[in-house]
């Protein structure tokens, strides 16, 4: 009996020991998921893309998991240097070349991100020395020079048109499968031009305080009114100025603006910033059940969304 159970234990141990490197190996071997990575994308694939580009010295920015302009130029330089089609899209061919030419220390990158450290991922340097919170290593001048010269090349004037044309062929419906159970957190996010994350948060607070019981488009509408006021000559020119204008919003007056907004409110704000205006350019709105001011009733009304009437 005892020997049997002991054997069992040993068997399990052996299994575990052999499985660990195995699973590790599998992760390493499979570079990227199937998706074509385009500018604006966020996620694990972008982390890998940035890391690999940095490994080769093309990318000197922060590895943050957001495919921004820095990554875009780095990718194009890479494509140019490696004789690929220069389109700024990480398609299958580009990814394969990149995976072949570089290494990706996923554990290192994920660990550093998780710990919130400043880190780099250059090749030719001991990866373990590129973490911690110290400033990025400065020993990559050769690689940087390489990067600069790559960009001198003449490139097609309209990259976007180019993308449109050929992406049909590359269109790949495969889902970007996540090789981990949960996607790791990226440390940065896209923000619409002209607004900071904090502006968005402030607006989400106002929207939630003002319209949390409203249908989704009613929340977008409240956010749109704030934006319309920003543009209007008769209101302050900053998000905080509009929101905190005395008597402008009841949620500000009674402190409901400081409730914690839900995700819906934030999405509504993003939609409004991205150009959705369900109100038809309204500057005011009121709840007909609670509004006592005769002045507000006198404003020309545009439409009703949920409980709110929106007016000029």
């Amino acid at each position, binding site marked *: 009996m005892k020997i049997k159970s002991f054997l069992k234990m040993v068997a399990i141990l052996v299994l575990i020991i052999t499985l660990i490197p195995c699973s590790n190996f599998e992760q390493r071997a499979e570079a990227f998921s199937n998706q074509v990575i385009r500018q604006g994308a966020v996620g694990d694939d972008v982390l890998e893309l940035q890391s690999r580009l940095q490994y080769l010295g093309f990318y000197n920015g922060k590895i943050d998991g957001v495919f921004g302009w820095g990554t875009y130029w780095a990718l194009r330089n890479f494509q140019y240097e490696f004789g690929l089609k220069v389109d700024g899209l990480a398609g299958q061919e580009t990814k394969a070349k990149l995976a072949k030419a570089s290494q990706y220390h996923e554990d290192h990158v994920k660990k550093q991100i998780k710990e919130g450290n400043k880190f780099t991922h250059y090749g030719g340097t001991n990866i373990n020395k590129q973490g911690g919170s110290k400033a990025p290593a400065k020993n990559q001048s050769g690689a940087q020079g390489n990067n600069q010269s790559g960009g001198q090349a003449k490139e097609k004037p309209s990259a976007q048109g180019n993308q449109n044309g050929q992406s049909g062929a590359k269109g790949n419906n495969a889902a970007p499968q996540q090789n981990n159970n949960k996607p790791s957190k990226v440390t*940065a996010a896209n923000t619409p031009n002209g607004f900071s994350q904090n502006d968005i948060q402030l607006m989400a607070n106002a929207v939630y305080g003002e319209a949390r019981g409203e249908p989704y488009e009613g929340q977008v509408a409240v956010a749109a009114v704030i934006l319309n006021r920003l543009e209007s000559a008769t209101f302050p020119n900053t998000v905080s100025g509009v929101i905190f204008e005395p008597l402008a919003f009841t949620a500000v007056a009674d402190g409901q603006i400081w409730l914690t907004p839900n995700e819906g409110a934030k999405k509504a704000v993003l939609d409004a910033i991205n150009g959705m205006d369900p109100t038809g350019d309204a500057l005011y709105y009121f709840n007909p059940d609670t509004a006592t001011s005769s002045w507000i009733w006198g404003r020309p009304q545009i439409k009703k969304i949920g409980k709110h009437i929106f007016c000029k």
Partner: protein
Amino acid sequence: MLRGILITVLALGVAGAAFWGYQEHQEKNAILQNAENNYQRAFHDLSFQMDLLNDKIGTSLAMNSRSSLSPALAEVWKITSQAHNDVGQLPLTLVPFNKTEEFLSNVGDFAYKTAVRDLDKEPLTDKEYGQLKSLYQESAKIQNDLRQVQHMVLENRLTWMDVELALATEGAPKDNTIIDGFKTVEKTVESYSETEFGAGMVTMKNQDENFQYLKGNKIDKKEAEKIAKKWAKPKDGVEIKVTENGEGSDYGFFSVYLEDKKNKTHSSMDITKKGGYPIWYLSSRDVKKQRISLNDAAEKAIAFLKENDFEDLDLFESAQYENMGVFTFVGTKGDVRIYPDAMRVKVALDNGDIVGFSAEDYLKSHHEREIPKPSISAEEAKKKVNPNVKIMEEGQGVILNDLSKEVFCYEFIGVLGDDTYRIYINADSGMEEKVEKLDNAEQIYEDVV
């Protein structure tokens, strides 16, 4: 004995309550005073800025040398923005004070427009000089009215808290010296008609073309419903409600509301009466975990626009916000991008559905344009770009410049340091019309310990 104890306890209780009440009262007063002081500061500041504004316009009138006129006008511009800021801090939202604020921003626009101009090449015209003169007179009147209110406030120790209370509790503004004073100011400005600003001012205003370029016949409710069905592709059993716009709207539209009771989602959209064009579309569906890539979503967005007969559009920007992809398209004519004709499509990254769409800018500005022949070559334009910027891409585009005018430009995308810039050089005059710094991703400050 027991009674004695009871009395002492009660007496202590009363004394304690009184003390607590007194403290609360004190605190409340301190807070009220604090708020009042903030209002007072904004108000007196406003009146000071108006004094300054009047002074500065006055001195700029007397100036002859161009070199001193530009800074003086820039100063006027600065003062108007500060005054505007002060107004925004006063509880006047429910008092009709729009005209005064509009006046301020008009003065600011006028000052800006003339201050940034090369006055050596293009001196003030007689008309502009006349405008400046009338602005001077007008600002003098406003200054006078405001001083009067200020005097009354100081003399009678009027408080802004009273104004706020009057406005907040009653809703309709009651008789209140300060409110009345501001109404007088408003009347003064109103009598000064907008026409005095001349035609030049119109372009500075927020362009509100009210879909003037739309073609097609007026549609009715039935047709609106049909169009909505074509766009939103509702499943069976979806309730559709169509309502007309209210009377306050500048243009006619139908609002369509599609409710899917079974799946507890709904979507809504507005459709113009003229021609039946969709202005925006929004679905409230909960988007699940990302399953398709941003690139595939872009394909879906392009296919969607093609399917709905939008032509000559270029995918301009793509961005992922969590599990949403937002794509901005701009119009094209040949190789020239028409930036005012912008359109946005929002794609859910779980199944590739179109969950949002906004064509307001596109519908408002899209029309047949004549693209002029550039009078300078691309090489010449390139020389106008800061030599430190490394140019990566170039093209041509029509943009709205600072003065909200459409101009035809050479477009350069370049890199300086770690930042990417979009630079527009006027294809006619070679002027640098616009330089945009393209945002990098912003760091998330949460959980960054």
